[in-house]
């Protein structure tokens, strides 16, 4: 009899405790509730949830908050297709904003078929690791090492290494998130508006003949592109042509025409990078032989 009594007491006590704690929670829920715009979740659902940061916000939810606060435009999301961004704009009743399509561009064209290697790198297959060991095995100290750190870091599968060991950016998939810009130890990537058609695919700062000894598509600093372009568009800095994109309206294909190596290119949506008529034609497909520096003769 006593045991039934004990069970009853315990049961009642537990039930009472449950009711008491539940009422605490219920009150807390009322009192501490955070008012949240119900549209926030809807917008977040429409966003890609890639949390890439290309819009300038830490992630998709903060971007959704910025949209609600009116401090951002839907077009800033470079991952969503335009239609979805338009849907967000319609949903919120705000302006879409100017779609500002930007992509990652690589400032190197020195694949294994045109650029020599001066030493054999045998360590961890990572550009970052190679670059601290004498700058990697490549003859050109500025060039792409081709060990695919950018391919590995890209969350959108937009970068694929080609047969010559150079990363190729898929313009449609690229969201301009900038991860490849951060990982490249040679700082060859930059995120550029798609309207920037004229492009210097080189960062070599060596003197002309030394640069050409290592790579056939080097910018040798001859200055022809600078001379042929409207004044101030292309400057020569440390043996390298540098385009002033503030004057992007002045760019034309004239600049690439007389380039002897094809380091300056015109980026075409369909045909890819177009070289000038005077550029050296490279038909080679296979990699160049290794040119490891010989030891001195004794």
């Amino acid at each position, binding site marked *: 009899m006593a045991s039934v009594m004990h069970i009853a007491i315990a049961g009642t006590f537990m039930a009472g405790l449950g009711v008491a704690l539940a009422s605490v929670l219920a009150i807390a829920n009322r009192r501490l509730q955070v008012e949240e715009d119900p549209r926030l979740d809807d917008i977040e659902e429409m966003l890609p949830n890639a949390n890439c940061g290309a819009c300038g916000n830490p992630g998709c939810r903060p971007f959704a908050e910025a949209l609600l606060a009116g401090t951002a435009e839907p077009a800033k999301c470079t991952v969503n297709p335009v239609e979805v961004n338009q849907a967000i704009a319609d949903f919120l009743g705000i302006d879409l904003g100017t779609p500002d399509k930007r992509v990652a561009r690589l400032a190197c064209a020195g694949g294994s078929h045109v650029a020599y290697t*001066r*030493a054999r*790198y*045998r*360590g*961890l297959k*990572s550009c*970052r*690791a190679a*670059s*601290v*060991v*004498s*700058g*990697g*095995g490549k003859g050109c*100290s500025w060039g792409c090492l081709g060990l695919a750190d950018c391919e590995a*870091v890209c969350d959108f599968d937009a970068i694929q290494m080609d047969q010559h060991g150079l990363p190729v950016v898929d313009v449609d998939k690229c969201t301009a998130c900038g991860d490849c810009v*951060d*990982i490249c*130890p040679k700082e060859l990537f930059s995120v550029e508006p798609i309207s920037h058609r004229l492009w210097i695919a080189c960062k070599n*700062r*060596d*003197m002309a003949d030394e640069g050409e000894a290592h790579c056939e598509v080097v910018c040798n600093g001859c200055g022809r592109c600078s001379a042929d372009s409207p004044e101030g568009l292309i400057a020569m800095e440390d043996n390298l042509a540098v385009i002033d994109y503030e004057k992007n309206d002045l760019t034309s294909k004239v600049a690439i025409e007389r380039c002897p190596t094809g380091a300056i290119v015109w980026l075409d949506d369909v045909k890819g990078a177009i070289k000038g008529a005077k550029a050296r034609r490279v038909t080679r497909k296979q990699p160049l032989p290794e040119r490891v*520096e010989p*030891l*001195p003769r*004794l």
Partner: protein
Amino acid sequence: MGFFNFIRRKSFSHGIHPPDYKEETAHKPIRRLPFAPEMVIPLSQHFGAAAIPLVRPGQEVLRGEPVARADGFMSAPIHAPATGTIEDIRLMPTARGPKVESIILKAHPGASQRVLYGAELDVDTLSAEELVKAVQDTGMVGLGGAGFPTHVKLTVPPEHRVDTLVVNGCECEPYLTTDHRIMLEHTDELIRGIRIALRASGTRQAVIGIEDNKPDAIEAIRERLKPEDPIAVQEVRTKYPQGSEKLLITVLLGREVPSGGLPFQVGVVVNNVGTLAEIGRLLPKGEGLIERVVTIAGPEVKKPGNYLVPLGTPLRFILEQVGYFGDAGHLILGGPMMGTSVASLDVPITKPISGLIVLPEESANDHPDRVYPCIRCGTCVDACPVHLNPSRLGQLAARRRYETMAVEFHLNDCFECGCCSYVCPSNIPLVQYFRIAKSVNRERAA
């Protein structure tokens, strides 16, 4: 008694015992290397801002004349290693990677070894500040490998009180014997340098830590010390990486430098024996640092030894002088644990480089870089001298969670000694991962 000595002998926990390969060069006296016909003098041979050139192409310079001045306090001047003509100032390859502005000096064919520039200094009358300035004028940087400007190390921030100068004579890297030879052959200069450093830094006592595989060096220094000298010689156990400054402080004084901190914070200034011996030699003469002792060793060297090499001598010239065997194909500047492989023979000897190791080329058939999965054996944890968890860090690095590594797992306390990679049975390149992580974190912070 010998047994108790062994127990008493000081050391840190963890660490490794790689074969030391020092017997080949340890007994070889320091010899001079001739001038290379063309020397390459990088303007950045130290930690900090690059020096600013004082010369132009075509100019004649004397041996010992300054050719570049320090750019501010965190920088060091550079002096001409030989009498000759400045050929050019242009970009040249370095061992670390990017090309840097370098002065190309053509030595006169008959240039003499006499140093023709410099005014004698009465070291005993100089104040601490004047001594620090004089040390900067010599262009002295840490000759042990880091290349940190010595005068910066000797300048104690006013908020810290320092009492002890720790003199690092461990030289724990395999192959290297430069510090060993300097302690044996330049004992008086070393002791003079220690006295100067004591005064310049305002410390009262000095402790020289020497690994017990160099009993002759310990003996030589103890013999020359006068009883009134506030300098003690402390034998420490031979173990890698005993020569790390923070570990050595813990071993000798029982003080632990806080994470991310500097030796100042525990009242200590650390300098390498090679650096102090050079200060003791150069400062009274008012000369600049223009040559250093480099151990040239390895199975492929014909005449291994300890050479006094003019700074700026290209590796190509050194190989011509010391000779090599047919299999030579892999050159390492510095020690094999923390040094770096070289990809160009135009790379010169610079101030922080204490060794050139010539190894045979690995044949393409062995698989030295085949990596197996981590088996969680914990060997790396047992090896890490700063008590990190390299295994966990490696797994995070594979997922590129570099910030987590720094914030939660103290990545920045790793000084890249390479013990973890050395012991890993799965051949995982752990320290290489950590270098990647640290470089990415540095760039993000910038």
